[in-house]
């Protein structure tokens, strides 16, 4: 049984995605990855049916995954949605977090870059 615990905000590991992420970069769930995401209290759990892996994801990283699971979104859009929820006034505080979190999801194969607008 594959169970995966993620503590994204505290992870010290550096991931290489191959592509640098810009605020305009649009990310999506890979087509081969059928993902089911549920928010349970303050946690998020995601089930990846291809590998039968269950991930425990701390918020707010889980929210990002849930939103991208609904539709492809840009880093900017994800940041805006997060800003609405956490009521932070400064976007520059949020964008680095979103980028690093998305990079981790990409490295794990749970997200992929749809397009990067130059």
């Amino acid at each position, binding site marked *: *049984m*594959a*169970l995966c*615990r993620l503590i994204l905000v505290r992870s010290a590991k550096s991931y290489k995605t191959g592509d640098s992420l810009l605020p305009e970069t649009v990310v999506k769930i890979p087509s081969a990855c*059928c993902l*089911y995401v*549920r928010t*349970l*209290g*303050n*946690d*998020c*759990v995601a*089930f990846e*049916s291809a590998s*039968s892996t*269950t991930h*425990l*994801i701390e918020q707010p990283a889980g929210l990002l995954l849930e939103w991208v699971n609904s539709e492809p979104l840009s880093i900017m859009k994800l940041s805006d949605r997060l800003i609405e929820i956490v009521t932070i006034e400064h976007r520059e505080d949020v964008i680095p977090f979103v980028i690093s979190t998305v990079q981790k999801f990409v490295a794990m194969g749970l997200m992929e870059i749809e397009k990067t607008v130059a």
Partner: protein
Amino acid sequence: MKVASLTSSELAARLSRVGLCFSIGDFDICLKSPLKSLADAVLFFYGDYELCEDGKFIDFRVEVAPPGVIRHWFRPQVNFSFDGLKPFKPLPQVQAFAMFEWGLNWVIANNAHQFLVIHAAVVERHGRALVFPGSPGSGKSTLCAALVTRGWRLLSDEMALVSLANGLVTPFPRPVSLKNASIDIIRSYASDAVIGDVIHNTAKGTVAHMRAPSSSVEACGRQAVTAAVIFPRWQANSASSLIELSKGQTLMKVAENSFNYNVLGVSGFKALADMIECSKCFSYSYELLDDAVTAMEELVQNG
């Protein structure tokens, strides 16, 4: 018509010839065995269960029988088989009833995939079920037995069957398996508990079974809503302590305690997430059963 309506010799004859077919919750079982000791144990523990009508479809056919004639004379043993398959090595014949119980657990865990099967005890009061997942030795069966002797309904001592169709816990009330020190703990806690023979030197240590209450057996058609998922832990010299767990962590821990979560795929994930979403989640450590029973009563009364 109940198993107890058969005389001891009728039951033994049926067991050894065509097999004894009886219902446990949602399942119809056919047990075959030539062993008189097993016939006596089945009458003792399963007397309140309904016999299946002739011609009814049987879900699982199992047999508990000695491996061969020669071995009968030298340290007699017994085998458990399911549809001709022998999943375990033979055990001493004195452990025949325990082997039937363990074998039946194995059969359900590996075949009842219409349920998410969790290694957990389940009891219910006021329409609210408490699920106690836990590894062996955590004290879940002891706590379950104590609650049952105080009037709680037993749904299962060993496995929570969460219906994939409606998310409710389906009863599977069978004898409660008590091990080692918990046998005497329950004897002294509830003098009216009906406990069978004590079997020593099993793979799980000393084992004895407590009969499921008749009221729980009669209510085995009534599913229950899960109110809380609680990881119990008996701890010497510790005060009763109920600590809330996050739902995400609870889902991961329960998945680890499930027999078939990995088999069910997304339907197992959905069933488990639905159950956890509607439940409170705790870890609970206790030393005294009185404290534990009071804490569980308060939990279901306070919602």
